[in-house]
């Protein structure tokens, strides 16, 4: 039981130890900052870092929520109309695998504002993974349950909201969790590429500044901050799925 806590802590200690050693060996190069240097950089520049995080977070969260909402609505349309499904299925499959870095230039081609760029790319990065999972999940409803709704003359929307959506919820939440991890990555890459015309710098633009200034501790601190944002978002979705699904799954890990 206690191993559940002790072992991960040992792993963390080893990780920080190796990181520290590598940084110590490489001091001359000054490319790999150690954990302490990173913490110092994070603390020293906390004002700029969190301001930058705030700039990206607003656009990113909006893009994420829009992607999930539109993704679910699109999946409902694809589930309903076979023609649409046949037409779009291959594109959804391909685009969900497109690396974010290849989506980001879209934002530079049409530079309205950084906020809009981050919003669009985050949306694209999160939209396809949601549609890819949600469409088959909405179609996989148990036959007897569908028959039940038919015998009680349920309307189309009753069938979707009271049966198909809740039935697909476990898979849907897994897809949303994945999207929550993609969102900060998409935001930072876009901001890095498109952020030049922004008044307030986002994380990506700050990253550019750090690289130019050869502030590698700052770069590391920024990456850790971005990763933590993703973890917090995914963790929030995970908590929501835990509480909503705990009654109807064999165990809380059944849908992880």
């Amino acid at each position, binding site marked *: 039981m206690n191993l559940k806590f002790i072992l991960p802590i040992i792993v963390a200690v080893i990780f920080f130890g190796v990181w520290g050693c590598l940084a110590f060996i490489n001091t001359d190069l000054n490319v790999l900052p150690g954990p302490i240097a990173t913490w110092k950089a994070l603390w020293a520049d906390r004002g700029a870092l969190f301001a930058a995080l705030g700039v990206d977070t607003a656009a990113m969260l909006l893009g994420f929520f829009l992607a999930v909402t539109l993704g679910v609505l699109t999946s409902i349309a694809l589930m309903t109309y076979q023609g649409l499904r046949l037409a779009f299925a291959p594109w959804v499959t391909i685009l969900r695998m497109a690396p974010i870095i290849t989506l980001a230039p879209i934002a530079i081609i049409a530079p309205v504002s950084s906020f809009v760029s981050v919003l669009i790319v985050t949306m694209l990065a999160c939209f396809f993974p949601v549609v890819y999972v949600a469409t088959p999940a909405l179609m996989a409803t148990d036959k007897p349950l569908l028959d039940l709704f038919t015998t009680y003359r349920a309307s189309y929307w009753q069938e979707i909201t009271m049966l198909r959506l*809740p039935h697909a919820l476990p898979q849907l939440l897994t897809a949303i969790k994945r999207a929550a991890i993609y969102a900060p990555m998409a935001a930072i890459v876009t901001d890095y590429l498109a952020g030049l015309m922004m008044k307030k710098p986002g994380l990506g633009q700050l990253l550019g500044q750090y690289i130019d200034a050869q502030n590698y501790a700052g770069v590391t601190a920024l990456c850790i901050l971005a990763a933590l944002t993703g973890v917090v978002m995914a963790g929030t979705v995970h908590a929501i799925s835990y509480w909503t699904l705990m009654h109807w799954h064999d165990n809380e890990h059944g849908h992880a």
Partner: protein
Amino acid sequence: MTTEPQLRIEGVSKRYANGKAVLENFSLDIQNEEFVAFIGPRGCGKSTILRLIAGLTPITSGQIQHAGGGDINQRTSYIFQESALLPWRNVESNVGLPLRLRGLKAAAISERIRDVLKLWDINHVSNRFPLQLTPGMKVRTSLARGLITQPRTLLLDEPFAALDAIARNKLSADLMKVRQKRHFTACLVTHSAAEAVFLANRVVVLAANPGRIAEIIDVPESYPRKLEWRETDAFQEAVNQVRNALSRVQEDAKKA
């Protein structure tokens, strides 16, 4: 019993999309408040008969008349073999589902939910989720949901198939009791000759390919029937009659 039958099945044939004739020229009158049991080899079309009565699948030719006319779905309830409970709703909320689908508010139906929960002796588990129920309680929940709309006809498709012998007998006895309080016509599909004889006025023995009536065995014993009746010679004789009819059907199938 009135002269006009509750259900009149007239010359019904059924072919599924693959063209195979599942039922051929099937006719049967079922009287008001009669209890009819269907028994026959696997795949002979027992579920298909119930699905046709419920309007879950279209009739290829012939017709099925329900006394009183109107909407079939207001007057029949289908009890599925798999119980077909929604895992994200608790017992109470599953039982109230048919009325919610008709647009009634939760507050308006709580009384009716309480009534049917008591009827099936599951009021003590009203807040449990399907995952937390024994197989017997699941069947009771599904039966309570079936009766909440006060149907004229209850269609039961092997409702006790997932239960052990003890739970089966207890539920047969309870179904008998409930029918004394709530008057409805019942069509039961079962693989148990004893269950069919115990519950039904008439046991319809079916033959396969295409599905048709081989023999009809009357069970004249009056209601309510007690569990002790199962120990009598009269009961055993009726059960043997059904079993013999079933073996004749199987022998004929082999010869053909």
